[in-house]
């Protein structure tokens, strides 16, 4: 049963402290440390920055000790829960889950009593759970970072979040989760095709970097603009960012061309489902006696 596969995979993951540290805790701790250092640096250079006429709006607010609205900050942070640092380190956990049974030669122990599809979907469910944990810890870390920043600059704290904000928060968090899951799907396919944890880790990373740069650097000289079919299909991360802009509303939403959302959803669905289907199909035909 699928539930058995999920329970077993989740149990094993809970025992891997290294995986938890790198995929769930490292990025938030690093971000928190960088945020605190940045705040201290800005505070130390406050006089110089205040005189700068080109100062950014949020920096200006910070220095002017405008009260910090934690509710609004959480909504903003929800959109960045799938930032490259989180996604990259989350991939360590995903690759461990997807390729661990090849690495430890344990498929033969568990594959006889459950369907292979259930077992792979069990891994997928656990990776989604791990991504949710990574996002939750990142959100907590970001909020703590905001509070530290408020303390350094002497800003007051407020919390406002109406029903619209709650909806926006969950929509943005959901899209961030979708981005992480989509990204790890390439890792799942790589893990099954190559039976290698390292390949499961590095193929999505290299592909992700290519997907980010090619639509900006390579395709425009070929006459393919960022909102073209090819560009959007090539870059699922950019596609999810476009949908996030629509959810945020206001000027950012207005800047998204009308034809982009449909193309973006198609890109996201293709990049999420095709690797998963490919991995399941390949896994069902695989000789698991050779690990």
């Amino acid at each position, binding site marked *: 049963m699928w539930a058995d596969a999920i329970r*077993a995979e989740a149990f*094993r993951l809970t*025992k891997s402290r290294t995986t938890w540290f790198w995929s769930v805790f490292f990025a938030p701790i690093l971000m928190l440390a960088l945020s605190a250092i940045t705040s201290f640096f800005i505070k130390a250079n406050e006089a110089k920055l205040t005189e700068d006429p080109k100062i950014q709006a949020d920096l200006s607010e910070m220095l002017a000790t405008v009260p910090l609205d934690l509710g609004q900050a959480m909504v903003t942070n929800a959109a960045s829960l799938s930032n490259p640092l989180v996604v990259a380190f989350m991939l360590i956990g995903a690759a461990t889950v997807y390729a661990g049974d090849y690495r430890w030669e344990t498929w033969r122990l568990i*594959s006889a*009593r459950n369907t292979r599809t259930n077992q792979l979907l069990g891994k997928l469910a656990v990776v989604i759970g791990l991504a949710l944990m990574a996002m939750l810890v990142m959100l907590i870390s970001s909020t703590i970072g905001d509070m530290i920043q408020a303390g350094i600059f002497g800003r007051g704290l407020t919390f406002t979040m109406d029903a619209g904000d709650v909806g926006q928060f969950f929509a943005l968090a959901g899209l961030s989760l979708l981005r992480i899951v989509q990204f790890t799907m390439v890792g799942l396919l790589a893990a099954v095709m190559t039976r290698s944890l390292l390949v499961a880790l590095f193929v999505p990373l290299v592909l992700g970097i290519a997907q980010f740069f090619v639509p900006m650097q390579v395709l425009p000289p070929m006459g393919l603009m960022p909102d073209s079919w090819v560009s959007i299909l090539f870059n699922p991360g950019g596609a999810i960012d476009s949908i996030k802009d629509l959810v945020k509303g206001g000027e950012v939403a207005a800047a998204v061309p009308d034809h982009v959302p449909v193309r973006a959803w198609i890109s996201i669905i293709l990049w999420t489902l095709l690797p998963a289907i490919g991995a399941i199909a390949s896994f069902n035909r695989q000789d*698991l*006696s050779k690990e």
Partner: protein
Amino acid sequence: MRAGAVAVTLPTMSAVIETRRLTKTYGTVKALDGLSLTIPKGGVYGVLGPNGAGKSTLFRILLGLIRPTDGDATVMGGTIGDPKAMRRMGSMIETPRYPPFMTARQVLTWLSLAHGLSSDTNRTDRWLERVGLTQAADRRVRGFSVGMLQRLGVAAALITEPELIILDEPTSGMDPPGIQEMRALIRSLAHDDGLTVVLASHQLLEVQRVCDRVAIMNKGTLVREGTVSELTTTSERLRLSVSPLERAAEVLGDKGAVDGKALLANVPRAEGPALIRALVEQGIDIDEARWVGTDLESVFFTETGAVQTPEHDHVG
């Protein structure tokens, strides 16, 4: 049973494993070549064969890890891969490996969950005790010796309390006391707990001591099958110290072979006295006559054609 013969089981025995013309090819290499084998319920069943005989391929097919090229098989009454049948069997293929960060107890809990059982610590502790790993229950497996991994592998195969367990080289890498304990455990599982144990081993003496029935495979086919006593008794040969040797060899014809200064006569035990009388009547002096070649090792080397060296206590 001779090669090519259809496997026959006594009517009172019910089979736990039946293969019919099972074939597996890897490119041009035939790992299994039309293997028909019936393994009866109960006792310890040994599968013997030199490297490349097809033992591991057979086990992997039975466990659903690979698919046969041709032929079919039933395991515990179900087809290969049938989840209901698979739930009634456990296995250990070669030296098992586990996630190195887990303890022995955690490994068994993890496998229990994977097999749809609860994380019952009584069950895991019981099997850890049975394989002699109680003291190491909370140690991480990354520090385990090969022998300890083998024991944990057997516990893992038993955690679901199956009716049939398949063990590939269960004593591999173990020290002599460990081998003795494993042998006792295997016999206890078969004769006290009522499990059917199917094992492959290179250790011929080990197989002779622990198994009730044996199948000898070579080049993907079954060459002999039967109880250990059947195989060893039917392989006895009469060793004759005679003179003149050449004259005695002529009398024996293709039933005899020269072995140093003696003759080995390949005749059933019942025909021994008549053969001796015939030789005496031909004027041949007989200094000594005794039955030899009663161990499984001799049978194995005869049937598989493997090269036996003086140091050979197991086959590669």
